[in-house]
């Protein structure tokens, strides 16, 4: 079982994702964005960074890369696809996830630990977690503010596709605990099949105690297990 990590010009978290998934025993290979065949893989991660400099709009140019045609094709077949930060933005631009990510409400870049509460396990990112569980993981973005129209948000909620929300350390979802202004404190969502997931904070940055938190492991492990299942 192998997991691909897509690398766009300007990506910068690909090695970090490789390292963290490696800690969980996954076999990972970096795939340049010009590749268009992921048939050897059981899952793909779109890592964080600044694909194409985040110029024009985050993710806008990256979604036309050849690898994204393959990702879109595989998405329909239930293939596990995880977008982290910039990867989440690319998935939204590619219409594989609803909504969009715009500038943080205070117009500052935010690199900081945040708390998120697990809202639903109906996605390959949270299937091994427990609803209500509070995780401490780093956020690192300028355009991390999730927006969508009210109907889309309602539908996401109703179908259990809001996977994580920003909260305080005790798990209360409040406006103060919302670091970037995201609609309804949303930090991670899934597509209707649950196999395409996008998360704004970085679980790979919280996979070792020596770096301050291991809370991201349950999310990465969920994804690896989904990949294992998919490979069967």
């Amino acid at each position, binding site marked *: 079982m192998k997991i691909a990590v897509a690398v766009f010009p300007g990506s910068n978290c690909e090695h970090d994702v490789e390292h963290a998934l490696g800690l969980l025993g996954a076999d990972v290979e970096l795939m340049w964005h010009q590749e268009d065949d992921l048939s050897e893989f059981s899952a793909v991660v779109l890592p964080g960074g600044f694909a194409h400099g985040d110029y024009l709009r985050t993710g806008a140019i990256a979604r036309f890369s050849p690898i994204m045609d393959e990702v879109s094709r595989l998405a329909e077949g239930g293939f596990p696809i995880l977008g982290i930060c910039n990867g989440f933005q690319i998935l939204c631009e590619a219409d594989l996830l609803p909504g969009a990510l715009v500038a943080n409400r205070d117009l500052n870049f935010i690199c900081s630990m945040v708390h998120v509460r697990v809202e639903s396990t109906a996605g390959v990112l949270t299937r091994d977690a427990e609803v209500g569980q509070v995780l401490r993981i780093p956020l690192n973005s300028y355009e991390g503010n999730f*927006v969508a129209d009210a109907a889309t948000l309602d539908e996401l909620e109703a179908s259990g596709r809001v996977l994580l929300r920003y909260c305080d350390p005790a798990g209360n979802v409040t406006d103060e605990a919302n670091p970037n202004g995201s609609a309804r404190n949303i930090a991670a969502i899934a597509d209707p099949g649950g196999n395409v997931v996008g998360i704004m904070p970085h679980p790979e940055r919280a996979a070792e105690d020596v770096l301050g938190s291991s809370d991201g492991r349950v999310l990465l492990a969920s994804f690896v297990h989904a990949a294992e299942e998919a490979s069967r």
Partner: protein
Amino acid sequence: MSEPVRFRVRVMRKAGLADPEGATTTKALRDLGYTEVTAVHFGRDIVVELAGDDVAAAEARVHEMCERLLANPVIEDFTVERL
């Protein structure tokens, strides 16, 4: 070779969706003493230059560029104007 044809593309955030740049700028202007400012809306102004003589065809192409790349239909509206 002929002069390039130029179009101005204006991309604006859809009404009702968050516009943090607009909101922050409104506040900043009011703090600076421009208390008469009631709202600020942020958008992009993109000038596209193209080679070719068929202006109508070029304009259609620019529309297509907006739909495919320059604007995100989920959150943005756009207009195209010949310069």
